[in-house]
């Protein structure tokens, strides 16, 4: 069986408020009963990935200098406690990424756009 399916089942049980120990014991018993205990590391890896994916739904603002953070948060309209990442390669402006959406308002992106349009055959 697909480790992702076990991982998803674990996550939904956890969301429903089931006891973590009980979920893990249940998983091990189920895998044992099916003779698929070797799948356990893969299931745990899939679970970790799933948790990481869910946490990526939180907004992240990237700026070129830490001094730009306040203005970027104001402009992008996200809560003031939003995670801010500093990346000098952005040159200026800000980039907001949240749940599969991206607003790229960086100088780097604009300059790259000008360069590509100008050098297009």
């Amino acid at each position, binding site marked *: 069986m697909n480790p992702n399916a076990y991982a998803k089942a674990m996550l939904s049980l956890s969301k429903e408020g089931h006891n973590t120990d009980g979920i893990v014991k249940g998983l091990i018993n189920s895998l044992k009963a099916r003779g698929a205990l070797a799948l356990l590391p893969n299931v745990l890896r899939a679970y970790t*990935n*799933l948790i990481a*994916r869910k946490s*990526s739904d939180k907004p992240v603002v990237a700026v070129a200098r830490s001094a730009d953070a306040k203005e970027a948060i104001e*402009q*992008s309209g996200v809560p003031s406690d939003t995670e801010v990442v500093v990346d000098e*390669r952005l*040159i200026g402006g800000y980039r907001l*990424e949240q*749940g*599969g*959406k*991206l*607003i*790229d*308002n960086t100088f*780097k992106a*604009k*300059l*790259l*756009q*000008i*360069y590509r*349009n*100008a050098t297009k*055959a």
Partner: protein
Amino acid sequence: MAKDNSNTIIERLKAEIANLDTAPVAQDVGRVVSVGDGVAEIDGLGEAKMMEMILFDDSSNKSLEEAMQSEGALYGLVLNLEEDSVKAVILGDASRVAEDMLARSTGRILSVPVGEELLGRVVNALAEPVDGKGVIKSEQYNPIERDAYSVLDRQSVDEPLHTGIKAIDAMVPIGRGQRELIIGDRFTGKTTIAIDAIINQKNEPKETRPICIYVAIGQKESKTARIVQQLEESGAMEYTVVITAPASAPAPLQFLAPFAGAAIGEYFMDSGRDALIVYDDLSKQAVAYRELSLLLRRPPGREAYPGDIFYLHSRLLERAAKLNDKLGGGSLTALPIIETQEGDVSAYIPTNVISITDGQIALDASLFNKGLMPAIDVGNSVSRVGSSAQTKAMKKVGGSMRVELAQFRELEAFMQFAQDLDEATKKRIDSGRRLTELLKQKNGEPIPFALQSLVIYAGVNGYLDKVPAENIVKVERKLRAFLTDQHPALVATVTKEKALSEKSEKELKEALKVFAEANKDLYTTE
């Protein structure tokens, strides 16, 4: 001069800056979570559509300078939509895609440039030029996946598409808008038939000449180069587009190439013209699709092919059509090729494609080894709709040929055991031998249909009965030259009328008598 150039660049930059849209726009993006074997799994892209092109943005992890130096855009094609992620095949150098790379949605369904600009060009599965003749400046793009025309948009196939091959045009005729499969083992002349059919379109009047598209899938590049050279030498490249997805190309490109070809062919069909497309070959496309499906973790079925392998070929071949007059009356004729193993036509992919197409030209390795070329197995070859598109001239002369040849093949097998044969049987066998010889044809030498019908007339009406079988090929060649040189008006009339009128028949009979008289040495003396 240098100053002029820098002024131009400055002006261009100024214009770009003036037109730059600085308003923040939300884009649908995802992050690559895994990549391998040309397939990337992307987290996010919640609004991605099936067959949508996505852009792998390798600039996101690079500085501006590095991003400016990076190679051209790298696209992927969405083929699996899953609960939290999408799986896309990488259309290019997969080594450029890395984990955590940003993938942007383009909102565009995979399309290829179409139009007149493609004629005479050799392109890849994305219709990008690979012949070193510069960029293709096409203004129109057609999606590579499109619903086939509905029943009401079509009309029945009623116009012939001559291949220039006597055995096919006489016994397995193909109509414009038909799908005729060419099936056979390796090295039996499948590609040769298709290429001859393309070259023969040169004999058609320019205004009704079909545009030809040759799609090479999983072929050796040397073979494709040889075909392009042959087409160029015969002057056929001017109305032909060659699409190549060689054996060295990634599986996604081999899977896409026929669809790209269909999109290009549809452009000509939609503009009211006729087009001919050759898929060489669909067995290799099926193998590429199997590889792709297994990498996408789709459940395997028979012979590990995915469950939708039939749909893959049916939706492709269904795009061949003869449109009704309201839609311009254009047509797209498809000649798919399937390679069999040890003549096994009952294997999975051959039976699938046989059931989709409107007939098949079966090639037999044993006939090929006997030197009977084209090695068409008349018994197993059939054209379901072509006879209604056959010209009157060909119908008149070739009508009885099929039955006669089938009877000959049966008698030939019987003859190996029988000692004494009656006169009638002997006569039938002799006639069969002569007919078989008459249908022999060198590759790369398609014959215009009018000449075909005239020489076949001579064969089936007893005018070659006194020619020994071993001389038939020589006599046929001489007869064609004689008719072309001495009776051009007769050939022109049959070409124009597409029929053998009483007057033409009379003239032909006279001509055949004169020819026999002049070539007594090739006839028996008795």
